[in-house]
């Protein structure tokens, strides 16, 4: 009798299962590649391109046709324009069909008539090109009707402009610009402060909140729901509320502080260094502590109570129980939360953008992407910052996967 061995090749069933799996995954993979992977790759491409916001408008010829009259003389007018002020359009031509009842007079030099087809060749035209072609015509019929017919037949134009996004022009200027500028150090500092303090703050505050609610009492459910409010409500609503609350002129908090005699004059919380950076970090802690709170509370409630009873028997004090029993049990979830929140705080854009717009020393890397691309209209530089963001993120994820595989849950 031979010992039975497991099959070394893949059986038909196994192959069928794998095929089914891939076909179930295919839609997701396709759409994620299209909307996430492709843009990510294009960011690298764009970051090496000298491209501004204005370059997004394609360079192309624009043609308008009209039938005009001065007295009894009629003429067809083509207005040929280059949509770009800087870039040339190469091989610009115009083709139009002349309807019956319209006879063309003397043609301009660039044009030729074959049958009822008018063809004009402008060659290469520079940026800002704008010319009117006037061709006298004699009409055979009602001018009103013919005007509609003439203007109804759209002329076709050919000619291609150089698209900065697809040509072979590359530059390192974008990276040189963002690393060189004096701002870079301040952006880096704001990012590090916001990410580190925001993450740890949200964790510690969440831990406190979880400790508060880790016992049974009337109204616990209400408080638990209440403490989740900041995280659940739309960022736009809470951010604007904070701006309103801390406004130096009409903000309630300044009024309160003055009335209580804490300060003499209103404080511009979101408008001065270094207070603005502290305030956006406090906002981040306020908005995201519910998340760590929820996780930590769930973990706390799954800790076995026997352990605490044993500790009580041994005469441990409450702080000792927390320090030597609860905290070690929570260490796993705390480190996972720390990594996750660290990455997400680093990625955060909306909060700072809505609170300060990146002013007063609060411009983090992600806000800088927007700032460079849209405020300064330099898409290339914005993409370069985005590349830096993404590269940093990849480094974080290496850590993340190293640790998360050791931690259970999540």
């Amino acid at each position, binding site marked *: 009798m031979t010992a039975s061995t497991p099959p070394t090749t893949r059986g038909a069933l*196994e192959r069928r299962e*794998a095929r*089914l*799996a*891939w076909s*179930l*995954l295919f*839609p997701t993979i396709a*759409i*994620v590649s299209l*909307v*996430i992977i492709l*843009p*990510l790759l*294009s*960011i690298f491409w764009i970051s090496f391109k000298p491209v501004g916001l204005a370059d*997004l408008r*394609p360079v192309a010829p624009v043609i308008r046709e009209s039938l005009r009259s001065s007295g009894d003389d009629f003429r067809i007018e083509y207005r040929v324009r280059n949509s770009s002020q800087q870039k040339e359009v190469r091989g610009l031509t115009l083709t139009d069909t002349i309807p019956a009842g319209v006879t063309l007079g003397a043609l301009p030099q660039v044009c030729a008539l074959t049958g009822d087809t008018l063809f004009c060749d402008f060659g290469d035209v520079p940026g800002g090109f704008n010319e009117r072609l006037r061709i006298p015509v004699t009409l055979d019929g009602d001018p009103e009707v013919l005007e509609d017919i003439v203007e109804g037949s759209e002329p076709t134009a050919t000619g291609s402009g150089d698209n900065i996004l697809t040509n072979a022009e590359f530059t390192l200027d974008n990276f040189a610009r963002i690393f060189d500028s004096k701002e870079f150090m301040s952006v880096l500092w704001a990012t590090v402060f916001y990410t580190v303090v925001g993450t740890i703050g949200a964790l510690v505050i969440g831990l406190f909140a979880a400790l*508060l609610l880790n016992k049974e009492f009337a109204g616990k459910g209400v408080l*638990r*729901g*209440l*403490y*989740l*409010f*900041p995280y659940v*409500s*739309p960022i*736009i*609503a*809470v951010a*604007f*509320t*904070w701006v*309103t*609350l801390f406004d130096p002129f*009409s903000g*309630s908090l*300044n*009024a*309160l502080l003055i*009335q209580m*005699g804490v300060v003499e004059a209103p404080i511009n919380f979101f408008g001065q260094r270094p207070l603005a950076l502290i305030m956006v970090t406090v906002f981040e802690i306020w908005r*995201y502590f519910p*998340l760590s709170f*929820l996780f930590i509370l769930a973990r706390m409630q799954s800790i076995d109570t026997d352990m605490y009873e044993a500790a009580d028997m041994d005469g441990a*004090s409450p*702080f000792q129980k927390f320090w030597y029993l609860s905290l070690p049990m929570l260490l796993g979830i705390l480190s996972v939360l720390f990594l996750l*929140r660290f990455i997400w*705080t680093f990625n*955060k854009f909306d909060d700072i953008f*809505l609170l300060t717009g990146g002013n007063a020393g609060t411009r983090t890397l*992600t806000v800088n*992407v927007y700032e460079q691309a849209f405020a300064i209209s330099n898409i290339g530089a914005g993409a370069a910052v*985005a590349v830096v*963001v993404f590269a940093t*993120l990849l480094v974080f994820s290496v850590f*993340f*996967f190293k640790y*998360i595989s050791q931690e259970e849950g999540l």
Partner: protein
Amino acid sequence: MSVLRNGAVTAGVIGLLWAFVIAVTVAVTLSFASGLGFRPGALGCLILGVGGGLALIYLRAVPFLLAGFVAVSVVLMFTPLSPMQFTDGVPLGWQLLSVVAFGVFTLWPMRVMLVEAHPGDLTRHAFEDAVIRFLTGFGYIVFTAAVLIPFYVMVMTSLKSQQALLKNPLDFSIDLSRGLDLFRSYFELFGQFNFGSYLWTSFYVSVLTVLITLAFSVPGAYAVARLRFKGRAAFSRSILLIYMVPMIVLALPIYIAFSMTGLRNTIPGLLMIYPVTTIPVALYMLQGYFRGLPGEVEEAGLMDGLSRLQVIWKITLPLSLPAMVSVSLYVFMIAWNEFLLAFMLLDDPSKFTLTRGVAMLNSSEIPRQHLMAGAVIATVPIMALFLGLERFMTKGLTAGSVKG
């Protein structure tokens, strides 16, 4: 440390700190409620707090003490040693209310805090117990205030008029005689600013996002959870990796591509992006749940002649209904609250989503209360959903909150 652990010292210090906390709380609460000027009085807090703490551990007759404490507070109110200070023009009734509230809320919880404290040296256990009870009370007040005040200000500001707001930013009292005029900002938002249509746009965009997300992520999650194939581990890791890509990094190329293809400023364009940002989260949450379902039921279905797809449809989905609700709610919340993409991709006011509409109100020409009314309109539906289905929502949050 040993001095602190003396019962009298512990009681006095905790009494003092707690009295001060309560004085500040009462002052802030009443200021926000009435717009009048309340302020904690340091000396009064010192005397009453220390006195109250000591009285509690020496006398222990709580009902009698409570009455006495409130009476002393009221008497002190007429002297410069009052625990609450008032600016001019605070009516006597409000003054009395503030001092009585101070008395009750100082002494009553303090009784619980000092339950294990007694005159003489305290054990470490009794001392830490008192400290923890004090910190707990303090924590409840701070957390509740920090969460509630912004939302209170948001709602109340939306009901005020511009002049009233500038005159006294603290005055959130509601002038009921204005009747329906209280809701004027809301009428104007729905009447002139087209908020009805934004609400509808946000609603159907969010619902469609949920549906599309589920359509993609359910089969994907099932494959990852149940089927064996090469690259399964790599796939689930890349899913995690993908939803850590920051939106702003993607928004830039998407903006460029949409500008060139004319998809910018269209709802279908938005609907191409929103589900993709949520599919990875949904897939991750669902596969976790599917893994937890008993495989035997599905195998029984397979034995009885169902195909895999029929198994998913007839067995897995009905069993995972609670998870589907959680995931749907979570995705709905993400789509409803989404701001960045709507802000960058929509310029045409007739196509705005609610968040984009609220962002439009943030201009110096539009009064503050309109902005706050917009914020309330954006918050209320998601809050209603959250409070109504909190059980599912918290489950969704815990399962999916890998995403920020």
